[in-house]
């Protein structure tokens, strides 16, 4: 794992602070799945998860001018999510169901580490099946990549290396790293497109 460098979300956060609400939407799309998974481990009622996640992002949006960047944006958002979930549970006078994995990740500012976790309570059989299909498609798409593209996307997404570090590892210019990661993403996205159940750009 690489040492903590500049926050990858710094440009987006700064843009939101300048009044661009749409930049905040980009952060939402980036972190919504992780935040919902976190909240899903804390509450029993699966119907509450999206509502608490929405409240988390609204609170983060309101508090963003006070975010000083002392920690990564995701770490900051993570804490807001935990506090929002706890408050929701207190308001509902329910006992939180906090798993060891959720507690262990409370100081986690690593957005690239892979954890093998049990499915959350909110996963229905249909959703589990769909998730497995998506995961299998992504894995198959990665296997189909050339060695250069597979190594570049893996070093970035799994190992969390910066472009400069990947360039060192792969002994190539940073521009090449940038291009390989982009082409790997495009190739995987092409394989996933039938599962997106929407044409390119529709609804987004």
């Amino acid at each position, binding site marked *: 794992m690489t040492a903590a460098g500049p926050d*990858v979300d710094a*440009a*987006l956060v700064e*843009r939101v*602070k300048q*009044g*661009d*609400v749409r*930049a905040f*939407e*980009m952060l939402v*799309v*980036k972190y*919504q*799945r*992780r935040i*919902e*998974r976190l909240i899903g481990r804390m509450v029993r009622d699966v119907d509450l998860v*999206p509502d608490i*996640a*929405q409240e988390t*992002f*609204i609170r983060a*949006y309101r508090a*963003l001018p006070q975010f000083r960047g002392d920690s990564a944006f995701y770490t900051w958002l993570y804490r807001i999510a935990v506090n929002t979930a706890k408050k929701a549970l207190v308001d509902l006078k329910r006992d939180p169901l906090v798993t060891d994995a959720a507690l262990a990740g409370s100081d986690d500012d690593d957005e*690239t*580490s*892979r*954890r093998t*976790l049990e*499915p*959350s309570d909110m996963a229905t059989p249909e*959703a589990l099946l*769909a*998730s497995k299909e998506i*995961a299998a498609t*992504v894995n198959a798409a990665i296997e189909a990549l050339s060695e250069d593209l597979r190594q570049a996307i893996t070093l*970035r*997404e*799994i190992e969390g290396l*910066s472009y400069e570090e990947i360039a060192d590892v792969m002994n*190539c210019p940073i521009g*090449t790293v*940038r*291009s*390989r*990661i*982009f082409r790997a*993403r*495009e190739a995987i*996205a092409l394989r*996933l497109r039938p*599962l*997106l*159940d*929407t044409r*390119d*750009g529709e*609804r*987004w």
Partner: protein
Amino acid sequence: MTHSVDDPNERRWLQLSALCDGEADTAEARASFEGWRDDAALRARWHSYQWIGDVMRSDDLASAAEHDQAFLLALRGRLAKEPVVLAPARTDSVVPAVASAGAQLAVAGGRRQRWGAPMAMAAGVMVTGALVVMSSSGPQPTVSAGPVALQVQTGAQTVAAVGPSVGASAVQVGDMLRNPELDRYLNAHRQFAQGSTLSVPGGVRQVAVTPDGQ
């Protein structure tokens, strides 16, 4: 091996991919922000790139894309009702405490905002006047020099807290512009202050007391 990018769309998506990883420069990031506003295909790609990364890291993040879309649409509706956030810009001339005071004034309501500017101007006039008195009349009698100096110092702090630009310029400028009307007012004020001081010398005047009681 580098990949030449001639297609404008592909170039924008390449920049978007770099923004995903925090590796886009300022111009590239700006292009992506603007693209997010106007380009549905770019928005879809942003989701795909993030989704791929999540699934690579953990299978249980492979949620359905429709759910993600519905989540964003619902949140977008709520965000539309929120006031736009604007972080206060940091400048070298404003200390953090002043920025905090300014922010408090800004959110305190229309009434305080209406009075903020006139009060800052009035305080600035006080500081200016006090400096004019000090520079034009030379050393003052011991009895009045203390209170005037204190008033200047207090006034400068007040102005700096309310309107840093006014206070800073008034304090930094050594030769003040003379205003005849202001001079008349200040002279009258000074005479009044001296007169009242002389009329009750025992009440204001400070004397040194030696250990032997002299």
